[in-house]
């Protein structure tokens, strides 16, 4: 995936994801790339961002060690609050959390995510782990940022099962069903980034990563994608961003090949 030897696709994704985090925001942070994106944003343009973890944690400083799970002891020590899961979920349902970051196994054109069943629920070909807190974050966060592997089998016209709601069938679906959260704002993939049409709520290609063509993105996407009129190349990670990412993931456990 590393197209020019200077950085990996994962490093580019982390940098692109970090730019979606605004200073001072409460961010519902996941593991892996989202956590590295949060750590990068903290060290660059969003020093006042605060991270929430569904196990019941709030931190304003990323843990000093690489985490394998959010409950790892280095993530607890030095937290602003280590409380009951229900309390951080409560902040989410209050509308106090501006941004949530999620990955997924399947995604569709309206940003719906499936992490539950490939195939039918009754007779699945693959049973995926399930929601965890993802469906809550997608339901309740002010904005949703989706970070995932871009493959045709994953980017489908319609997901088999809606675990984490995007814009459902598009348009005003979220208001109709009563979801309070704002829904997906952006998708960062291994090939490019997407924003969402303000009216139809359909994913629109906003940028392609260096060395990737829009045709390549089309080929890896299971629906006829719309391309933004001002589609452009994704700005590559800066030297500073790469240094911070590699400091936080020294052996490339999450961002290596």
């Amino acid at each position, binding site marked *: 995936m590393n197209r020019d030897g200077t950085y990996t696709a994962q490093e580019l994704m982390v940098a692109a994801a970090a730019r979606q985090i605004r200073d001072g925001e409460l961010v519902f942070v996941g*593991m892996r790339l989202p956590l590295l994106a949060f750590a990068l944003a903290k060290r660059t343009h969003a020093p006042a961002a605060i991270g929430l973890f569904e196990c019941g944690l709030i931190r304003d400083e990323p843990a000093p060690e690489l985490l394998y799970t959010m409950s790892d002891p280095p993530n607890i020590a030095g937290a602003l609050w*280590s409380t009951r899961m229900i309390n951080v979920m409560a902040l989410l349902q209050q509308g106090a959390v501006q941004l949530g970051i999620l990955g997924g196994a399947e995604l569709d054109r309206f940003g719906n995510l499936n992490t539950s069943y490939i195939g039918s629920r009754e007779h699945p070909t693959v049973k995926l782990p399930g929601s965890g807190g993802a469906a809550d974050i997608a339901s309740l966060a002010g904005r949703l940022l989706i970070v995932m592997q871009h493959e045709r089998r994953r980017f489908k016209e319609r997901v088999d099962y809606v*675990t984490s709601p995007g814009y459902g069938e598009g348009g005003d679906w979220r208001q109709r069903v*009563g979801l309070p959260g704002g829904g997906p704002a952006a998708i960062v993939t291994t090939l490019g980034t997407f924003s969402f049409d303000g009216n139809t709520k359909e994913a629109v290609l906003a940028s392609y990563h260096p060395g990737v063509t829009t045709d390549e993105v089309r080929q890896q996407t299971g629906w006829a994608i719309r391309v933004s009129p001002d589609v452009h190349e994704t700005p590559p990670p800066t030297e500073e961003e790469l240094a911070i990412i590699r400091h936080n993931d020294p052996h490339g456990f999450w961002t290596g090949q």
Partner: protein
Amino acid sequence: MVMGKVVTMAQAIERFVPSGCSVLMGAALESLIPFAAGHEIIRQRRRDLTLIGPISDILFDQLIGAGCVSRVIAAWIGNVSVGLAHNYRRAVEAHSPDRLVVEDHSNFTIALGLLAGGLGAPFIPTRSLLGTDLLVGNLSLRRSADPDTGAPLVFVRAINPDIAILHVQRSDDEGNAHCWGNLGVSEEGGLASRGVVLVAEELVSRDVILSDPNRVLLPSSKVVAVVNEPWGAHPSPTQGCYGRDHEFYRAYHEASRTQEGFQRWLKAWVLDVQTRTAYLTRLGEERLKQLKPSRRLMAAPVDYGY
């Protein structure tokens, strides 16, 4: 106070975790997972259990693979740092070794269900999961509306497990216990359950626990058994006692790819090690040493004086 709650793990499982009951485990998510208790449940060949928990980081997968489980009520079942749960997949996709009923929740709805159960409330309403497929065929998540505003709501029905198994750092012999670090739904889960089995790293005097009543996890009147089992949560972490054994999870993932591989793993790590002591011997001194804290991080002093 009911005395004599201290029993061995074998006694606790024999008395309080019969086949067919519902068991809450893994309330603190990836930490404080009661693996020692789960392995004893497997050794005592329990069947038809309903497992309840927000997420399960391989413990539910082990119980499912061992044929102890007929139903799971959970938000996520897998291997957090490595990937999917192979036994869980085989059970759901191929009904092997047994057919498994899955009641899919989100972390918030399972927490709300336990909160309602603990409160003695029939349900708690939420706006989460509206429009999702989790509401399809889960009778504990009821589509409804706010009688005052007409706004759509999900009524999360109360969850009351028969027994909760909770790992804690220290307890006295009556079940007055301190738990710290990551909490998850330990409190809600304990209050919602009809009884609680505490697995403690350390047995301490009543005075130690009562010196800090704000740190107490739940009322000892809920506790039916106290088991003193150091390292009882391995390979999951216990704050201040030992870290997470990441390699153990990776090795389990590889070993459990096939039914046969899982059976070999089960024999090696559960069936052939009748006690936790034997399990720890198999792990080896060196490995345990590596998991022990390299630094102490003491909580600031607190004075309850008057």
